[in-house]
């Protein structure tokens, strides 16, 4: 007797031909229309048949080719990750490359193919599973557990390559990526394809996916809940990254409407390209330097195209993170010399190592609160050897160059005194050894609220301030932006944050030192007039935002901005601040209405 089972699947089959419109949140501005590329991680079926002995050579050859291919992919992912996210993330992939070439695993795989008549993919599966079991037995903490995930990733990569199912080979040009969510690695690979937009079921506004999409100007809508379930490959999809809407299989009239919107938006952003290399001077004559935040030397090539006037923040962490140890002074000297050569006449503000303690300590010592822990200048002051190696290398490489140096995470005046003492020691040592160097301006980042409170005193001791708004926001509000439960509380326009920024700029100007901004707030165009009103001297942003920020500066008056600032500093809630900045910008620059 056969029991009746509910046949839900048939009744609930979604209608996949009608227009579907979903509302999410805009995470990267712009519009896109293109065929959907549905991205789902494949479930891999492993071929466990027994091979004939004469097939062994072929299988071994397939295995070697797959390793080669996987190595190429991982090097590519590692390099791109390095460019987009920094070495902190790319180190994962470097460890995976070592696993790919692990001689013990290779030995087992070859043996299984030769002696047990396994296919290459079955041998790979078996060998990796064995190692995963070994590691599970040895894993006493989450650190090794993480390596198990890496091993699984490597295993699937090799097997996928054996099955020639190249993950991204079939992404058509001008596609819209439709997925439940993307990992940073997925995002990085897609960013190399000619995709026009992305729509996701999940994702956060401050996630890496969103950050990368914004820095590449790829429209992105997140939080669409079920888009990946209702779109087929090749369906036409509209990405509305202004209003946070995705429309699949649009009706002709909707499509036409969006083509018009796109055209209008294209015209809107093209105005930023006018006179891109002209300095950013307000209508009433105040010049603001618009600089680029750079993490990777290769980015310097794009500076001219975007009209950047120098490097406002050069991060050096990757020198450490790529190796896992701090490179020698000579190595650093060569690196900085070639960097400063590349930058030519552009001024460069280089930041001393800003590494988290977890990176230096490895895992056996877990900090309860890493963001309140051993990081930035705290490590440098505890480890004068690291400090001196880096600073000597920078000073030596700066001869004949336009370089400034800054230190991160300062939280009081004592640290500034300690830095100055160490600097003096370095000068004396270099003088004694007759090594050529240059005394360059030394500044500090202001990103901890306590440093703001004593910024008047600090300003008397340093050559410049650079405000790191991301950390300043996080520390002022006591909100960890990486914590999904509360990340919506992370608001860089909170009155408390902007008042601290204002105080920092005032303190700097009391001592006649320039004050720059290098956090994300610098590329938030709503905040640009406010920062000008507060008297900011330099704004440093990700390269692709330089044209827009320059355009805004060129089209406003400092005197109007001062009035705006006085008004906004009196507001008590972030909602009021945002509303006022929006209304001001639309009023003074109507061309932005609809886009902010």
């Amino acid at each position, binding site marked *: 007797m056969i029991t009746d089972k509910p046949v839900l699947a048939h009744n609930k089959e979604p209608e996949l031909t009608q227009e579907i419109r979903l509302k999410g949140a805009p995470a990267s501005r712009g519009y896109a229309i293109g065929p959907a590329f549905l991205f789902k991680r494949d479930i891999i079926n492993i071929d466990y048949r027994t091979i004939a002995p004469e097939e062994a050579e072929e299988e071994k050859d397939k295995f070697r080719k797959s390793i080669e291919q996987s190595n190429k992919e991982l090097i590519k992912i590692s390099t791109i990750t390095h460019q987009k996210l920094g070495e902190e993330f790319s180190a994962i992939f*470097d*460890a995976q490359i*070592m*696993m790919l070439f*692990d*001689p*013990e*695993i290779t030995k087992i795989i070859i043996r299984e193919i030769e002696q047990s008549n396994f296919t290459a993919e079955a041998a790979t599966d078996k060998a990796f599973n064995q*190692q995963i079991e*070994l*590691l599970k*037995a*040895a*894993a*006493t903490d989450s*650190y*090794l557990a993480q*390596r198990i995930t890496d*091993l699984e990733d490597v295993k699937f990569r090799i097997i996928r390559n054996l099955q020639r199912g190249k993950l991204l080979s079939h992404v058509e040009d001008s596609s819209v990526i439709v997925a439940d969510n993307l990992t940073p690695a997925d995002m990085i690979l897609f960013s190399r394809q000619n995709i026009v937009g992305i729509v996701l079921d999940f994702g956060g506004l401050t996630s890496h996916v969103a950050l990368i999409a914004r820095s590449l100007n790829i429209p992105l809508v997140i939080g669409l809940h079920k888009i990946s379930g209702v779109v087929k490959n090749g369906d036409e999809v509209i990405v509305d990254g202004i209003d946070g809407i995705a429309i699949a299989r649009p009706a002709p009239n909707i499509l036409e409407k969006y083509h018009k919107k796109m055209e209008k938006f294209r015209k809107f952003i093209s105005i930023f390209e006018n006179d891109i290399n002209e300095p950013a001077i307000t209508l009433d004559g105040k010049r603001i330097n618009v600089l680029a935040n750079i993490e990777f030397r290769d980015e310097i090539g794009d500076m001219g195209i975007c009209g950047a006037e120098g490097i406002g923040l050069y991060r050096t962490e990757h020198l450490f993170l790529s190796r*896992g*140890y*701090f490179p020698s002074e000579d190595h650093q000297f060569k690196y900085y010399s070639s960097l400063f050569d590349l930058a030519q006449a552009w001024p460069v503000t280089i930041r001393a190592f800003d590494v988290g303690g977890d990176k*230096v*300590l*490895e*895992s*056996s*010592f877990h900090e309860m609160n890493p963001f309140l822990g051993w990081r930035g200048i705290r490590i440098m002051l505890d480890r004068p050897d690291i400090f001196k190696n880096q600073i000597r290398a920078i000073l030596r490489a700066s001869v004949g160059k336009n370089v400034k140096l800054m230190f991160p995470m300062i939280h009081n005046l004592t640290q500034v005194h300690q830095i100055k003492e160490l600097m003096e020691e370095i000068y004396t040592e270099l003088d004694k050894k007759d090594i050529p160097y240059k005394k360059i301006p030394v500044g500090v980042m202001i990103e901890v609220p306590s440093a703001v409170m004593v910024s008047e005193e600090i300003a008397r001791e340093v050559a410049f301030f650079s405000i790191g708004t991301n950390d300043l926001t996080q520390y002022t509000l006591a909100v960890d932006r990486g914590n999904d439960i509360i990340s919506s509380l992370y608001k860089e326009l909170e009155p408390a944050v902007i008042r601290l920024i204002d105080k920092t700029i005032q303190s700097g100007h009391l001592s006649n030192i320039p004050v720059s901004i290098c956090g994300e707030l610098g590329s938030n165009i709503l905040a640009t007039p406010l920062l000008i009103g507060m008297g900011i001297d330099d704004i440093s942003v990700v390269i692709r935002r330089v044209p827009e920020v320059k355009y805004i500066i060129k089209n406003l008056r400092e005197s109007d901005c001062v009035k705006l600032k006085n008004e906004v500093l009196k507001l008590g809630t972030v909602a009021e601040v945002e509303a006022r900045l929006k209304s001001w910008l639309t009023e003074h620059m109507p061309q932005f209405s609809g886009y902010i």
Partner: protein
Amino acid sequence: MIEADVQIKNNAGLHTRPAAAIVKMASRYKSEFYITKDGIEINGKSIIGVMTLAAEKGSWMKLTFDGADEEQAISEMKELFENGFGEL
């Protein structure tokens, strides 16, 4: 064949980063390389092998190199351990 006893000196012990440093260095030499700890011998050129040792600060292990360049290999490897993998 040449052997040496070494001790883990860095606070974090033999985690991924030091393990990677060991494998990287060992791979530059032609000699076979084994590490023995608590009676277990692993291939020192295998990242997984080295990680499974899960050696903590203060623990001792024996390094064995066997091959034409063993002398140079062992002195360099001993130095890496001596320096606590650059984490001291």
